[in-house]
């Protein structure tokens, strides 16, 4: 009986995902460009695609850039989200409600919409960001172009991604904070423990399992980020010096119709993400087994 119930999903996933992944492996061993695409037939080239990618310094630079990008985004998101959750506990009830509504609203924003709003706010002609920064006397940002250097581009992409990701972290951590035993916090405070000690010794251990899951989810998501960097920096502005793994493989594989090479990059990327997912999947499996 259970097999009959599971069968349709397994069959469909096998056809629309298993079969393409089998093809991905085959493609990675083939020369498969526009000509081959039209013929629906590639030429076997062995491990040539892999060695070409692995000997390309662009791949290694891109990988390093993606790792740094992921670390920064995840770090800011998790720390920031936790701080917001701690703040939510401390503010008045009406403000907590207001903040929660605001956070959920931000959370609900579709990525492409958020990108458009960000482009408008940060455009060099009359973007509001330049105006505000100049008015706050943080420097002269009159017609400042935020998309000139790679670092500046990614400052914008990171702000956008973190802004969108904070609500999820803040709200889930806030929910978990209700599990922290009140008496323990009070006892520690009466003993004269400083706020940081109370957080570290009482609150943090309770939050830890959740923070680990949120961190690994964020790592997986940010490592594969595509929509925000691709659209905010601009489809035409994706170049060697600002590639992330996802945009790299998109431009090199799909954009230049070199599917064989793109397949090799895809496989390498999928392998990295599979390794990164290990912890999360194991944790979720435990949940699935318990019930």
């Amino acid at each position, binding site marked *: 009986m259970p097999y009959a119930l599971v069968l349709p999903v397994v069959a469909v996933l096998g056809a629309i995902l298993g079969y393409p992944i089998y093809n991905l492996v085959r*493609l990675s061993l083939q020369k498969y460009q526009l000509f081959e695409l039209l013929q629906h037939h590639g030429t076997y080239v062995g491990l040539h695609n892999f060695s070409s990618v692995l000997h390309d310094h662009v791949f290694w630079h891109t990988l390093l850039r993606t790792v740094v990008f992921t670390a920064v985004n995840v770090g800011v998101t998790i720390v920031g989200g936790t701080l917001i959750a701690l*703040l939510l506990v401390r*503010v008045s009830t009406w403000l907590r409600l207001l903040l929660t509504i605001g956070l959920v609203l931000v959370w609900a924003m579709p990525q492409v919409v958020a990108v458009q709003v960000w482009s408008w706010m940060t455009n060099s002609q009359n973007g509001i960001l330049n105006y505000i920064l100049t008015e706050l006397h943080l420097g002269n940002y009159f017609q400042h172009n935020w998309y000139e250097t790679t670092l500046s581009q990614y400052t914008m992409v990171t702000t956008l991604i973190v802004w969108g990701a904070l609500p999820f972290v803040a709200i889930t951590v806030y929910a978990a904070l209700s599990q922290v035993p009140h008496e323990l916090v009070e006892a520690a405070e009466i003993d004269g423990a400083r706020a940081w000690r109370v957080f570290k010794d009482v609150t943090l251990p309770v939050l830890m399992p959740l923070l680990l899951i949120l961190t690994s989810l964020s790592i997986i998501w940010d490592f594969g980020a595509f929509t925000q960097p691709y659209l905010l920096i601009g489809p035409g502005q994706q170049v060697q010096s600002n590639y992330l793994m996802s945009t790299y493989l998109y431009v090199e*594989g799909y954009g230049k119709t070199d599917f064989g090479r793109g397949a090799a990059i895809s496989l390498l990327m999928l392998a990295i993400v599979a390794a990164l*997912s290990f912890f999360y999947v194991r944790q979720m499996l*435990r949940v699935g087994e318990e019930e």
Partner: protein
Amino acid sequence: MRPRHRRLGWNAIGLALFAVMIFPVFWMLSTALKNNAQINSFNPVWFPGHPTLNHFRDAIDRPAFWTDVKNSVIVVVATVVVALALSFLAALALAKYRFTGRKLFIVLVIGIQMLPQAGLIIPLYVVLAKHNEVNRLSGLILVYLTFALPFCVWTLRGFLIGIPKDLEEAAMVDGSTRFGAFVRILLPLVAPGLVATSVFAFITSWNEFIFANTLLHDDQHRTITVWLSLLYGGNRFVDWGAIMAASTLIAIPVVIFFLLVQRRIAFGLTAGAVKA
């Protein structure tokens, strides 16, 4: 007295945070309602004095707006219906039975959701091209099932295990068949879960960009998300009023749906770590 002062300080920080977080949403709405002179002024106009709906009219009159809305609706509805029907069965198996291979199935269901979409563009494109499904909505629906199915299986499982087994058994003692018990007892209980899951699958598919952008090639076949991403012109004059109005229109259904189901779904991703 001191805790009161402290509360005041936290409230001040909270208000500042609220202002910063909500500003982009506010700025989108404000821009959409302003006239062009106000939008392009070097001294920003914070609130639209005389709100105008011209940009909204302009946005929906742009070429292909309605066609692409229709495309999105077709793709999303088809994806949700198929995904829900198939995954409900699998979720039932996960929630009510122990069987060999169950563990492997769970690993697949969770693991697939973690795959980066960019990594799947190339194989999906090549396979769809082989079967003449590129630039077709049916091809995109198939692709959307790759993430909608695992998501629905996992979420529905969560809703199904919440239902006490006794209820189902009580119905069977009453002489109902298993199917009868299912329809009369289980279905009404699981209906809110079905609604929440389908709404969330709806949102994810409506928002999806990478696959739609790669697999659909012309105005007649695009989804509304891709349509919005192309609303740029690339000229020196960018029509921000129309872009913000279109952004608002596209975000509204998503936001409404999201507000309805956020509480039910959000915690599925972190199940087990929080006893909400």
